[in-house]
Structures are given as structure tokens and as C-alpha cells.
């Protein structure tokens, strides 16, 4: 199997996996527990961040693919734009931090950055589209909630990344 084909298959599989996590979130009654409109756990960010250390291009491809797929399956055009803004801000924020501070930080703070920035980007897009500051009161709760989820995902990655890389190596990915 050519390396390019392998790369594409890997990307597609991770896209499906990430969308699956988004779907799982969609099924969970999260808004009952955290009553902030627009709040998501961001579980699929675990995959994007995991890939960021392995192959940045693949991580970015999965990010775009998963955002598009999720919007296609259970969102609309507006929600696609919002989540795309959040996803891009989160991705490039994590990329920059990883680039600048790779030796000094772990996935814990990278994932927290992702969580905060994803919600921030989404919110900025919503404010830009709908105009007005009616959404401003949600900013701090959203970002703090994103931070908490990001922390949990980051701790998960700190704990299991090496093992997952080992498994993937065995599968020759």
C-alpha cells in the first residue's frame, strides 16, 4: 500500500472517529448538565491534538473533515461556520503554542488552549453574525467550561498518548 494511500485512509478513519465522538456528544444530554447555549465537550479535539504531534497536515485535514462531516450530519450552514471558526482558532492556537513551548508544556495545557479557543472562536463568529453583545454574558462560562473539558482531555492524552502511538505503530500507521 502506497504511503499516500495509507495517509488518506488514516485521515478518513480519524475523521470518522472524530465525527463519532462529536455524535456521541450530540447524544449526551450535556446542555441539561451545563446549561450554556453552544457548549460542547470537544471530545474530538483529543484526536486532533493527538495527531498534531504525529502529522500536522493530517491533524488539520481531520479537523476540517470532522467539522464538515459533523455539520453535514447534524448541523446547518450557520453552525458549520461557527464551529469552523472555533476549530480554526483552536487548531492554530494549539499549533502556535506547541511550536513555541513544545519543550515546556504537555498536552494538558495544549488541550486547555484548544478548549478555550474553540469556544472563543465560535462565540466571536456568533457575535459577528448576529451582531450585538447579547451573547457576551456567555463568553466567560463558555471559555471556562471549555478549559475544564480541555483539561480532562489533556490529562487523558498525557496518560494514553504513548500507548496509542504504540498501538498505531503495531498497526503500521
Amino acid at each position: 500500500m502506497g504511503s499516500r494511500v495509507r495517509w488518506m485512509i488514516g485521515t478518513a478513519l480519524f475523521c470518522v472517529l472524530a465525527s463519532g465522538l462529536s455524535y456521541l456528544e450530540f447524544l449526551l444530554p450535556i446542555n441539561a448538565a451545563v446549561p450554556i447555549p453552544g457548549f460542547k465537550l470537544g471530545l474530538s479535539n483529543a484526536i486532533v491534538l493527538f495527531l498534531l504531534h504525529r502529522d500536522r497536515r493530517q491533524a488539520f485535514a481531520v479537523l476540517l473533515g470532522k467539522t464538515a462531516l459533523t455539520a453535514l450530519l447534524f448541523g446547518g450552514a450557520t453552525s458549520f461556520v461557527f464551529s469552523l471558526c472555533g476549530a480554526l482558532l483552536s487548531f492554530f492556537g494549539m499549533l502556535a503554542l506547541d511550536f513555541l513551548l513544545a519543550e515546556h508544556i504537555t498536552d494538558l495545557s495544549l488541550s486547555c488552549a484548544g478548549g478555550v479557543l474553540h469556544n472563543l472562536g465560535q462565540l466571536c463568529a456568533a457575535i459577528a453574525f448576529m451582531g450585538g453583545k447579547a451573547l457576551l454574558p456567555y463568553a466567560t462560562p463558555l471559555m471556562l467550561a471549555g478549559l475544564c473539558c480541555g483539561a480532562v482531555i489533556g490529562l487523558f492524552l498525557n496518560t494514553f498518548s504513548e500507548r496509542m502511538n504504540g498501538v498505531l505503530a503495531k498497526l503500521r500507521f
Partner: protein
Amino acid sequence: MKKAKPMDAVLILLFVLVSLVPLTGLLPRPAQSAQIVRVTTPEGTEEYALDDHTIALDSHGYHLTLAVSADGVQVTSSDCPDHTCMKTGKITRAGNAIVCVPAHVRVDLVGGEGYDGIAG
């Protein structure tokens, strides 16, 4: 298994602080100093300086008393039916207003001349 590093804690603290920034947008704006009380009735508009005095108004068959002080103005008595003007309480910021609909009275606090352009 990776252990978190000190810089992780620093960054997370930073993110918490960043998350709190939008709250500052919710704080009340620093009061723009009001300079003048402008009272509008069907008979016309009068302006008064912000110092301690009372203004008696007869308008549209009702009688209102305004108490002006250095920091604002309020309607202290009125024989209008709804007393909404009195319930408004004291206004202290430029741009704020008290309205008495039955008496056709409007009381505005306006900034000084230098502020008029931004007082919107």
C-alpha cells in the same frame, strides 16, 4: 505517561484570566460626568446647572418637583397617576433620562459641551 510541567500550570492560569476578560465588557461603563439638567415640557426646554436646588414644574395639568443635586436629579413628588417618574429614582449619568408620560415631561442629564459629540 507524561507528567504535567510547571509551564502547563502557568498557561492554564493564563487561560483562566483570559476567560475572565469578557466579564469586563459587562461592567457598567464609567459614568460620564453629567453637567446639565435639561427639562423638556410642552412649553419648551429649560436647562439647569447641577447644584442643590429644587424645580417646581406645572405641565399638562400635573405638578412635579425635581430635586437637583451635584450628582444627579430625581422627581421627588408628582401628582401624575402612575408615578413612574418617581419610581425611576435618581439619575446620575449623562445620557440617562426620567420621563413622565402623563405630564409630558422629560428630564435629561447631559454632559458638558465638550462631551456632546459622544454623548449620543
